[in-house]
């Protein structure tokens, strides 16, 4: 009976910035093991039996909620879905009161999706339970980045290794993207080189402090990369003059058949979804052989199982 010394995760998963290299790899490697469960005839493990996980969603995101729900249920946790959509930040029950209510109900973990940046950080200060950030405003979406890295590593790397030497481009509305923020941090942590591609209006002021390169010319970047991640572009950005028209955006920054041919053979196409087909990505690219978009969805469950296991599978509260 030997006790392994294992890397511990922080108490909450609020930001990729809270993780170090070993912790990130631990999540990916654990997910790799748990992915096998999805192939097994019996897809349920007793690991989190008796734990209660609340999916607290202030924004519609059916795919993220279902992914967390499936992950929790495969680990035998009890899941409560709490949709608070429409509760504006200034009206109705405050996030703090909701947090205290959930705690009184005995929630061991809260998976929070919220339209405001920092909401998960605030929640973590008000509850004894574990808080998992499932997307907060334009801040971060850590499990999305983890599943993206997991997907990339399955194709371009191996279990136990990081993404050193890989070059990944993130294309689109970086300014408003929590997926981009988490991915920049995680890909950098795992040793990959990251190039952001977007019109200057959609790159944040202060980007020079990020560990990335920035380009406005997608055609120059695509031949260089091992994977390209297309971000969702919301057409309402057009009204605020971030770009003149969806047509122009698509022409300058969209991934289409011609651009796909610029990619190296074996380079991957990712998209966090939901996609605007014909805007940031054309159907041929989304459904082509280089696309791993559907794998991302499947991998999401494994990665979230890993996060739930590593945060809730032990004695909660003694970690750092």
């Amino acid at each position, binding site marked *: *009976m*030997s*006790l*392994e010394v*294992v*890397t*511990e*995760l922080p108490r909450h998963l609020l930001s990729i910035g809270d993780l170090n290299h070993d912790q990130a790899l*631990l999540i990916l*490697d*654990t997910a*790799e*093991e*748990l992915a*096998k*469960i999805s192939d*097994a*005839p*019996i897809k349920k*493990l*007793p*690991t989190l039996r008796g734990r209660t996980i609340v999916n607290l969603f202030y924004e519609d995101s059916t795919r993220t909620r279902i992914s967390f729900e499936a992950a929790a249920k495969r*680990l035998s946790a009890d899941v409560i879905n709490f949709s608070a959509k429409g509760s504006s930040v200034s009206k109705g029950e405050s996030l703090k009161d909701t947090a205290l209510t959930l705690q009184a109900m005995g929630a061991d973990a809260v998976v929070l999706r919220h339209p405001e940046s920092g909401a998960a950080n605030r929640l973590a200060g008000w509850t004894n339970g574990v808080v998992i950030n499932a997307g907060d405003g334009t801040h971060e979406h850590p499990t999305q980045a983890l599943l993206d890295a997991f997907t990339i590593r399955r194709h371009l790397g191996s*279990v136990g290794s990081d993404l050193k030497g890989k070059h990944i481009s993130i294309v689109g509305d970086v300014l408003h993207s929590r997926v981009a923020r988490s991915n920049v941090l995680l890909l950098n942590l795992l040793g990959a080189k990251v190039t952001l591609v977007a019109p200057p209006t959609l790159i944040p002021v202060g980007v020079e402090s990020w560990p990335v390169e920035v380009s406005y010319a997608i055609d120059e970047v695509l031949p260089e990369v091992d994977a390209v991640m297309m971000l969702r572009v919301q057409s309402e950005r057009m009204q605020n003059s971030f770009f003149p028209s969806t047509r122009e955006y698509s022409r300058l920054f969209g991934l289409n058949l011609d651009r796909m041919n610029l990619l190296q053979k074996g380079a991957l196409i990712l998209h966090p979804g939901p996609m605007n087909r014909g805007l940031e990505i054309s159907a041929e690219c989304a459904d082509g052989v280089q696309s791993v978009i559907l794998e991302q969805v499947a991998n999401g469950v494994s990665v979230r199982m890993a996060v739930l*296991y*590593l*945060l809730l*599978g*032990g*004695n*909660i509260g*003694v*970690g750092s």
Partner: protein
Amino acid sequence: MNAGKPVKTVLEQGDISRALTRIAHEIIEKNRGSENLLLLGIPTRGAYLAARLAKIIGSIDKREIPNGVLDITLHRDDLRSRPPRALTPTVIPTGGVEGKIVVLVDDVLFSGRTIRAALDALGEVGRPAQVQLAVLVDRGHRQLPIRADYVGKNLPTSADEIVRVSISEIDEIDQIVIAGANES
């Protein structure tokens, strides 16, 4: 390392290899050969012991004996008593466990809870024809109705003593020691 605590070596290198050889013979004897055998080791040290046993049986019976690794972490009933553990890959040889005689291999049999978890984990992989248990040391103090089919050495201990198994693949030496109580 064990300042002030009595440490007693109970099995040395030769003893361990003799015990494994004996277990190998017993497995062949009980199963009337080695056909249909599958050895699954429980990480960490059980996995290496399973590989060694498979090699010994194979050399006696002149055939390749399939062996693998069965991680039981997600089925443990003591998860909440300590920080989450990293998972070890479960490795099941091609052919799976269906219809096989699976011999679970672990270093020490103590409370029996590990084996209970292993049986659950195995149930998820498939449905073997039979499951048997081989351990290098049985130190008593069972908390569940579980017993081993093959035992390298029965070792009477007090509950707070620590049995430490070292194997050369990890620890550079083959030996089993009993350390006094209260050692961490």
